[in-house]
């Protein structure tokens, strides 16, 4: 630790800058530290102005591992002193990096609502969406993601087809209309000539009316076609969304696991899933067999449900399962009088549920 400064050096520097003797400086530092300790004991918090504040925090009991043997141990609830630097200290220390700011990096977490919005927007404005799509395509992060990109592409194609249909319809309508007017323009003089012989003025009116009617019909048809097209789009999207859960075959595959000596749910969870925080899933699956969340008999067979996604990339169903499992664990803890843990897991349940939406 070459960059550590000793206490003596601090005292020396203090007496140098203030002009007091080293003895006085040391007495001051000692008294200040004693004062802080005293405060911490009495009030649970203390501070050195312009430097930072100290606070005594409660640490809840938790399960840990013996770093040497890997044997699980329970760390009892205790208190510890935390330090929060004042703004002046924080800024002074961070001076070198102060100009840096955090920035958004693509969208990695998928949220249902924005996706639907995106699609709706894509229908409204066709071209501007192409650019972000490219960006997405460059970094396909997972199978799920690719799926969505393809989905958006088909959406785009649909939109293009729709636009084409409208354009052709519109041009067809224009052509027929101009044709008709030409025809009437031609036929009208003939009719005026014929007027003398046969008084068929009403007929001319009728043909004019006919024209109007046809134009209306055409407009209506166009409208209808557009609606149909949109309905088709919506249906397609629905179908696609329906398909997705099926594509990832319902992974409620259940495997068996035999409990070994000194293993708890979270140890097993870490072995099976790679993460210990998924253990409520196992507990939920085996709820009928074993009710206390903290005790497990050696050599019981456990049913271990598989995740829908992967441990790093959970699907919404996983989050939902985790939420209900955590709620169950919370209930179980409550039954055994462990209200503190029950509260913890009720909170986890809420967290998972939020993620599942």
């Amino acid at each position, binding site marked *: 630790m070459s960059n550590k400064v000793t206490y003596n050096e601090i005292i020396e520097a203090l007496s140098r800058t203030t002009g007091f003797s080293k003895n*006085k400086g040391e007495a*001051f530092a000692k008294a200040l530290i004693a*004062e802080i300790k005293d405060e911490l004991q009495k009030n649970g918090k203390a501070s050195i102005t312009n430097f930072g504040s100290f606070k005594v925090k409660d640490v809840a009991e938790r399960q840990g591992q013996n770093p040497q043997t890997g044997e699980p141990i329970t760390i009892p609830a205790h208190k510890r002193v935390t330090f929060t630097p004042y703004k002046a200290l924080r800024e*002074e*220390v961070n001076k070198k990096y102060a100009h840096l700011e955090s920035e958004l990096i693509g969208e990695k*977490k998928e949220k249902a609502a924005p996706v639907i919005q995106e699609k709706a927007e894509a229908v409204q404005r066709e071209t501007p969406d192409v650019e972000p799509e490219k960006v997405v395509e460059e970094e396909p992060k997972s199978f799920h993601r690719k799926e969505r990109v393809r989905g958006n592409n088909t959406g785009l194609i649909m939109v293009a087809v729709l636009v084409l249909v409208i354009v052709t319809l519109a041009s067809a309508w224009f052509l027929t209309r101009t044709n008709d007017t030409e025809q009437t323009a031609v036929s009208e003089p003939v009719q005026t000539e014929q007027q003398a012989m046969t008084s068929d003025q009403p007929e001319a009116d009728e043909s004019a009316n006919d024209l109007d009617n046809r134009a209306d019909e055409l407009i209506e048809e166009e409208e209808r076609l557009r609606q149909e097209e949109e309905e088709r789009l919506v249906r397609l999207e629905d179908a696609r969304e329906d398909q997705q859960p099926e594509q990832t075959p319902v992974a409620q595959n259940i495997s068996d696991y035999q409990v070994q000596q000194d293993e708890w749910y979270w140890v097993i969870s870490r072995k099976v899933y790679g993460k210990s925080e998924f253990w409520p899933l196992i507990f939920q699956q085996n709820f009928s067999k074993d009710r206390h969340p903290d005790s497990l008999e050696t050599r019981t067979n456990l049913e271990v449900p598989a995740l829908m996604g992967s441990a790093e990339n959970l699907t919404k169903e996983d989050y939902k399962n985790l939420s209900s499992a955590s709620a169950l664990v919370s209930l179980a803890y409550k039954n055994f009088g462990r209200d503190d843990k029950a509260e913890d897991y009720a909170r986890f349940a809420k967290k998972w549920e939020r993620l599942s939406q």
Partner: protein
Amino acid sequence: MTKTEVLRKLADQLDLTQSETEELYDSFAEGLTTLLANNRGFTLPGLGSFHSEVRPEHKSYNPHYEQMMMIPPKKVVHFSQSSTIKEEINEGSDE
């Protein structure tokens, strides 16, 4: 307890005037800040040790934007409590 209260108490203990104590107090805090800013760690006996270190750039989820963000590197102060204060504090809770 406010700074003035601390200063009054310390001045009494050390036989100094309050302004002298304040001078010591301020230059003490300033000295510690400079040390940490210059990457030097130190220990205040009986209280704990301080050092500063660079927290590297990392990705993190920003709940406001509902997106991942790249958090730039930052230099932060670390504190670890001394074993004596740890014992003292936890003794108090048992009683």
